[in-house]
């Protein structure tokens, strides 16, 4: 099989989905961010964003911390080491494929 095509086939499907790609790219650039920030930047509704975050958490790419800001619940999200490596690898493979 052509190397380029193989690179496309090897792309991480968890990250490759556009919604999750947005989330991972945004989290890659920061130490951590809250749910509201991701909702604001991605313009996704709460349900869609939650399902994408659950998928990323299942894959072991993000760490989710539930806390409070005063009396208001706050969900903090952080791309962990595995997630960072996976995103870097995804970018490299995508670059090679294109």
């Amino acid at each position: 099989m052509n190397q380029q095509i193989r690179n496309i086939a090897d792309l991480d499907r968890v990250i490759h989905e556009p919604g999750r790609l947005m989330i991972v790219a945004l989290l890659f650039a920061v130490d951590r961010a809250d749910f509201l920030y991701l909702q604001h930047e991605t313009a996704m509704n709460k349900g869609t964003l939650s399902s994408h975050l659950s998928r990323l958490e299942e894959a072991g790419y993000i760490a989710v911390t539930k806390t409070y800001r005063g009396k208001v619940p706050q969900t903090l999200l952080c791309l962990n080491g595995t997630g960072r490596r996976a995103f870097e690898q995804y970018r490299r493979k995508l670059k090679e494929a294109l």
Partner: protein
Amino acid sequence: MDQIGNLLERPRLYCNIDGLGELGGSVMCLGFALLWWLLMRAPADSAWHQIAVFGFVGLVLLIHYGTKAIKTRMTYPRTGFVEYRKPLHTQAIAGALGALTTVGMAIVFRRHWDIPALASLAGLAFTGACGYHFARAVRWKWVTVGAMAAATFVIAFLPTDVLGALGGDSPVARPDQAKLSGTVLLSLTVYGTLLLISGGISLWLYLRHTQAPVQEIQ
């Protein structure tokens, strides 16, 4: 790939979404201008010359913690919280070191260089930094950056006696020092005013287009 690159830039641009970065810069410029003016007007034997440094440090601390407090109460509940990665601090330290090096070189080579011209160069560097941090995200802010650059050039080419008059009746005796004082004072006032206008518009637009979320008390 470019779209991914844009996404990676988004959090950095979010830093000034509410205009607080510019307003902080404005308070810093106007505050420094005021402190500088007081320093110029104070008699040579005044204790103000010894304690002025605390005024500068106090102002920086006030801006740092004040901005943080406003963001916690206003920005984070509206559009979310972001904690930036360490490299941003590294850049700030590199910027501060660069500024200190420039000041150090200006002091060491003050006999050989045209110091007021150096002050204008520093003003251009500050304008460039404002362009990089504020205007990349919002295009109309290039107008502010352009106005800052134009003001820098106008101030640099103002006659010496006009600039010297600003520091004329101060204990600063030498004409080149009076010109430097005038350049710094005028530049800081103009930059501060422009950033105040630009930041004020950003803050107004931010408050207009975002809604404070309903508090969910548990």
